[in-house]
């Protein structure tokens, strides 16, 4: 959910009716937004990610008007000639190849309207625009722009302009050293050139996606707006412009198209064209599990913001251009469900055909955890995220074969656990002051590199590990627990002497079930205890439940 702020007075002006915060809240239950909190006139909303058209007050007011049945579509002259022209140079195609523009004339922009515009711009950047990587939006005062424009790319160190909020002209390299533009430097990482939009006088209007010029900055009550979207994804560039134009038009004004001349292509934007879908009433009934007739369906569609009419028993639905989330009939059916109210859908009963099937290994795990608890072990759940140091070095093991993460938040959670015992030792070291004896166990997944697994190159295994510690604890103590566990699970097994760096030599055994070694048992090597800052001896075992259940089932 995306948080956005709207002003109640502004919303009233947009809707053209008196509304209380409660009214707004009531209407919003029929949309994919909800109120987070109300403070005086300020309302903070949460909007579903798939509805970018609702990321500003204009979109919200449009949705409310649809529900109230008072929405009037702004008049658009589809045949009008483009008012401006943009020429796209070859140079920019390798850097940021797409540009789409629109002009909205005679729009009355209040202070709040500007705030909403900037909010829409910011929220779109954060979500659909992939933090400006895929697309970025610029807002200019069209009366200050000398067309036609050229979209080209220049060497970064050769670009100069006065950035918004500053009077003096600066080199782009200098701008990129300063806040807030500094944060966006990474967008040009690896490029020698930066895209620029140049007016007919040769002046730089902007260097997308980094900075816009101070000259064409919009101010309240200004009347003509030029919207420019540049980016690397053509679909997103076009869609974002459609939303921006549609929402700006909610405050009045006349939209004008812009001609974009690419080296091998011609775009005229914005399209402002609706798309159409055909829906059959039974599709709605089947998807939602409700009974509905076509008249009711039309009413629900209108409230959802779609125009609709019946044609040969089917319903033709007109989807406005800003509804970029609608790409299939099913998306329209969802809106019908929302307006109908999912809470009004009767719950269907589940007929029981036969009993289900449990994974054999989970069946074994279920029994094992009960036996462990009966023997006095406390079950714990530790995190799967860990780090290389804890998993290997502290256990006196080699460090390879551990799965690491590109983007951990904390270094101590930068790898996946490859076995459970280090996690149990970590747990014990957090509890040195709890009453002794301490006996703990965990049943959980571990992940290791496995080249044989063609797809993920990794293997995920269910393991059981147990550890006990006291002033005095030894091999026999943990051995007794393991014997009791495996005997109760009726698994034939034997112990063999083994060597493992984490355990004391001569007090380490491997656990064999039929021909498979399934685990290890012994007294933890004192240096390992020191590494975990443990002061009492620890005896432990770890077994691979998947192996145990596998070989057990085979035999």
């Amino acid at each position, binding site marked *: 959910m995306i948080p956005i702020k709207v002003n109640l007075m502004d919303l009233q002006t947009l809707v053209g009716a008196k509304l209380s915060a409660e009214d707004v809240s009531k209407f919003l239950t029929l949309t994919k937004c909800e109120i987070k909190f109300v403070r005086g006139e300020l309302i903070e909303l949460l909007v579903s990610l798939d509805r970018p058209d609702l990321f500003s007050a204009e979109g919200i007011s449009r949705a409310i008007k649809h529900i109230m049945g008072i929405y009037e579509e702004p008049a658009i002259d589809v045949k009008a000639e483009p008012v401006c022209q943009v020429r796209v140079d070859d140079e920019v195609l390798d850097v940021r190849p797409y540009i789409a523009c629109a002009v909205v004339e005679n729009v009355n922009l209040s202070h709040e309207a500007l705030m909403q515009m900037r909010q829409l711009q910011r929220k779109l950047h954060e979500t659909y625009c992939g933090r400006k990587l895929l697309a970025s939006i610029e807002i200019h005062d069209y009366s200050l722009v000398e067309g036609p424009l050229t979209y080209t790319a220049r060497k970064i160190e050769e670009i100069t302009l006065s950035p918004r909020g500053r009077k003096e002209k600066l080199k782009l390299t200098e701008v990129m050293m300063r806040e807030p533009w500094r944060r966006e430097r990474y967008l040009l990482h690896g490029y020698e050139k930066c895209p620029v939009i140049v007016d007919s006088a040769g002046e730089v209007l902007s260097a997308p996606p980094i900075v816009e010029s101070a000259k064409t900055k919009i101010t309240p009550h200004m009347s003509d707006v030029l919207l420019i979207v540049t980016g690397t994804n053509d679909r997103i560039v076009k869609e974002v412009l459609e939303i921006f134009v549609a929402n700006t038009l909610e405050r009045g004004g006349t939209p004008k198209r812009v001609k974009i001349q690419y080296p091998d292509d011609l775009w005229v934007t914005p399209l402002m064209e609706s798309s159409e879908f055909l829906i059959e009433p039974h599709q709605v009934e089947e998807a939602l*599990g409700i009974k509905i007739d076509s008249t009711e369906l039309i009413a629900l569609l209108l409230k959802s913001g779609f125009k609709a009419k019946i044609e040969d028993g089917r319903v033709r639905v007109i989807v406005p251009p800003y509804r970029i989330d609608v790409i299939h009939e*099913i998306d329209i059916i969802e809106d019908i469900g929302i307006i109908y109210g999912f809470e009004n859908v009767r719950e269907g009963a*589940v007929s029981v055909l036969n009993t289900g099937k449990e994974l054999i290994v989970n069946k074994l795990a279920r029994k094992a955890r009960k036996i462990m608890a009966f023997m*006095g072990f*406390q079950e714990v759940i530790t995190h799967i995220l860990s780090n290389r140091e804890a998993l290997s070095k502290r256990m006196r093991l080699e460090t390879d074969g551990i799965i690491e993460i590109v983007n951990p938040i904390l270094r101590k959670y930068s790898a996946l656990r490859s076995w459970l015992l280090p996690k149990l030792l970590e747990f014990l070291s957090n509890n040195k002051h709890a009453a002794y004896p301490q006996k703990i166990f965990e049943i959980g997944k571990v992940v290791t590199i496995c080249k044989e697994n063609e*797809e993920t190159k990794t293997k995920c295994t269910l393991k059981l590990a147990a550890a006990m510690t006291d002033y005095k604890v030894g091999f026999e103590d943990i051995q007794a627990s393991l014997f009791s566990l495996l005997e109760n699970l009726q698994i034939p097994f034997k112990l063999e002497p083994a060597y493992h760096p984490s355990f004391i030599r001569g007090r380490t055994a491997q656990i064999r079930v039929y021909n498979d070694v399934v685990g290890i048992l012994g007294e933890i090597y004192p240096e390992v205890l020191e590494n975990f800052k443990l002061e009492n001896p620890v005896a432990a075992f770890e077994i691979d439940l998947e192996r145990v259940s596998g070989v057990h089932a085979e035999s």
Partner: protein
Amino acid sequence: MKNSSNFSVLEVLVLQKLRNAGGKRKLEVLARECTKEEATIASIVEGLAEKGAVKIAKRRLTIVSLTDEGLKYAKEGLPERKILRKIVAMGGKVPLKRLTASIKMNKQMKAALGWAKKKGWIEIERDGEEQLVHALAESPPEGYDEKILKELSQSSGRISIINRVDSELQRTLQKLKARKLVKVEEKTEITIFLTKEGEEMLKQASESQVIKALTREHIVEGTWRKGYFKQYDVTAKPPEFYPGKLHVLNEITDRARQTLLFMGFEECTGSIVELEFWSFDMLFYAQEHPSRSLSEVYWIKTPNEGEVVHKELINRVKATHENGWITGSKGWGGKWSIQRSKKLILNIEPMSPLIRYLTTHKKPPIRAFCILRTFRREISDVETPVEDMQLGGVYSDEDANISKLLGILKKILIELGIDKMKIRPAYLPYAEPSIEIRVKDAGGSWLTCAKGGLLRPEIRRILELEKPAIIWSVNLSNVALACLKLCSYGELYSKNLNILRKQAEWLS
């Protein structure tokens, strides 16, 4: 006579040891015999004395012991006697210079000359420039100091105890002490005597044994009949005891599993590390979708990428993403990258195992579920990563719709002990229409516990499912928070053994 049953086990032991020793023992010996600290036995004995079972005798002792030097002189004789013998051997009258030349004249010898003079054995007279040493006696009788040294060296070890100290002895000891030949210590010796009453009490106590722990012998030999049970303070706090306990989150997970099994679902499993192909592309997340970004999902560094083996699926996914293929969808436009789909990530939802399951199960009825740990790229309040226990499920049949989905989800949540819930529209890239169920948490806010919807037609077509399908996930970690009225993940995934040991059992 006082009641013998008042005796503690230790008191009886002390009395027994005394009797065995013939009714008299020194405290230190008694303590050694009882293998206890002297202070412990001293307080026991005080108690016994109050009961009249023993008498205590104390006396002051002066303990004199030889130093190393003292021991040497005790054997060789005092140095002043040695000098006298020398003088006599040299004729009874010697110039001091000659005497000092004939013996090694160290500090001790100088002092010894002084002592001989003091004892009146010699005399030093002046003869002009020269000093003459005179022997006044040939072999003077043994002095008191020499007697003491001798006696000390004869008594075993080097310690001797002298009972009464008269003034002459006192003076001599002072002199020896000053000469660092002996060490003198003062001490109180405690001797305990068993009284007649004590003997009587012991007899009684032995006959009616105090029984602390009832043992096999007591029962088999019948001695418990003659015994007396020590009375315990039954209100006293017992030693701490912790039973083995199952973790509540796993209990809830297990119940959820049983519920699904009863409803006829088959369990499947999946990996924690998954290809973006199965986690996102197959679920119709656009490749630019914000949920796929580095800030939302953990990307795997090693191994750096996987492989998609299902070639036919790749083609269908590519076509559907780019232009909708034959699914009736518009698709996402742009180019779909196979490279991106090979990227390995940590699952954010329990869906990929179900999607993999659906590639081999296409005919209705299909009912499958999986339980999987999933990862949100967040850190909770206590600096622990957010890992959720999630239950994913899929149902494909003629009647797979929102109504059925609500039925299944409510059934699961009610089984887990949740009664108040709220249904809201949701956004799931793979399900449309989609809903979520929220539950009130301990803080009073609504927590999303389940979400799901009708599997998007694009995905259904790619998988060649014969019938529509509903797909959902239940966040069991959030269910646990709500059920147990816990406020944070830190409490649920507690690292504190005491909290786990005392955690209330979950009963649904």
